[in-house]
């Protein structure tokens, strides 16, 4: 049975960059416990010698030629069109610490 508690939830939230309050941690933890109960069924399956499937299509070597695709490139305006914070052609974020 997998370990799942508020502390682990806090760690996961940090990794996932999702803001979670202390109050929410417990609730999320119990929700995950329910889900993991279902998921843990997998542990009983004998998968020795079975290759994992990452791609159902069986495709290989799907590559493109080294050419510039003018049609798909954005103008600066298009690129910035949905940014809530922009300046002089740049996207803007508040100053990052430690840089």
């Amino acid at each position, binding site marked *: 049975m997998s370990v799942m508690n508020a502390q682990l939830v806090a760690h996961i939230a940090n990794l996932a960059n999702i803001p979670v309050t202390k109050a929410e941690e417990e609730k999320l933890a119990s929700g995950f416990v*329910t889900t993991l109960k279902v998921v843990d069924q*997998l542990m009983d*399956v004998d998968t020795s010698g079975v290759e994992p*499937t*990452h791609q*159902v299509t069986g495709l290989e070597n799907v590559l493109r030629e080294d050419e510039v695709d003018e049609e798909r490139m954005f103008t600066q305006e298009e690129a910035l069109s*949905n940014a809530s914070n922009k300046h002089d052609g740049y996207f803007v974020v508040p100053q990052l610490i430690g840089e």
Partner: protein
Amino acid sequence: MLRNLTLKQYLDKVKAREISPDDVLAEINEAIDQENPKLNIYLARNKNPKSKLQNPNSLLGAPLAIKDNFLTKGLVTTASSKVLENFKPPYESTVTKKLKEAGAAIIGKTNMDAWAHGSSTETSDFGPTKNPRNLEYLPGGSSGGSAAAVAADLCIAAIGSETAGSIRQPASWCGIVGLKPTYGRVSRAGVVAMGSSLDSPGPMGKTVDDTAILLNIIAGSDKYDGTTSKLPVPDFTKEIKKGVKGLRIGLLYSEHEKIKGTVVANALQQAGKVFENLGATVETAKAMKPDLAIAVYTVVQRSEVSSNLARYDGVRYGNDRSFFGEEARRRIMLGTFTLSKGYSDKYYVKAQQVRSMYIQNYNELFEKYDLLISPTSPGFAQKIGALGDNPMFGELADMLVEPSSISGLPGINVPMYHDQKTNLYLGLNIVAPMWQEERMIQAAYAYEQATEWNAWIK
């Protein structure tokens, strides 16, 4: 009344100059104005779509509803999440581009479970959609809005997407036809990614023929999606009347504890008999228990989701991550967990191994059978509020279609039973081997013509 035409009827009548596209559009727009506040199907609308009639205009301005996870340039696209509340895409998805170039009129974007995380449309950040067949009930999901739009004749046809049941299940709950193509048959470029190795855009419509017409247009390899197949696309409508004579059909899950002895199991048996009368051999078949597919799907999908939703930080577009709804947060976090150091072998790799076993199981089944049938959903549509607090609600509801989804197989839902009292439907799921959409379309068509469940075929 023009808006209850099927796509095929629409095209025939427009070609014959019996009706005009503008009239149909006007009627539908008016109906949406009236019905949408109650049903909450459309999030964004384009009342005056300019459809480019470049090529032999195969769709002749047919009004289509598009699920809101397809990026439509200039038309707000949200995936039903507050994170993308005012997002105006600067580019077009391949599917909608193809439809526009084929002369479709895209009249609006439909409600869905936020980020496609769900099977009821209740997790939408903009409120649930109501099932037009019975307003106390849910339309299913995640393509609930598109399914409802078709069921309510608020479009001529629609487009949805399926990761594990999201086309077929709402089609089942709303009593319409929903077609999930083989993974890789239709381009995902410009579709908000959910489960990258699972997502399959597909048509939803009033009849099998309608979905085949749309599939012809949207299928095909795309240079902007490296997972699309280069296999030639057949004309899915050409031999639609071929029938099922001589086909071997496997009947699945009739003994499953969730449906045994219920109206669902009974309806499935009846469907089997219909196919026998049409000249196929039908046999009860044994497959791997679908319950385990839930675990596979849960892990694979949530892992891929946690990765695909990492780009939403509010810097280049949209709002920041505090705007994610409850279900999205849960899925992102669980997926992060199943990929994390020390756990990824236990969960992610293991799930992908069991996935291989399902694929192998289907390979074995398809040596004996040409098609497989089962119920799409273990029951009728559920009442609004049914989600409750069960984080596994969606997966349980989709259990019967998850095995084929995780294997990349194509499947189609056709209505197979109608309850007079509730006005709700059950759906039949027909699954074919990879790339054999033609065969399942032919079987679905034959079934549809031989039975009375389709609300538009009298």
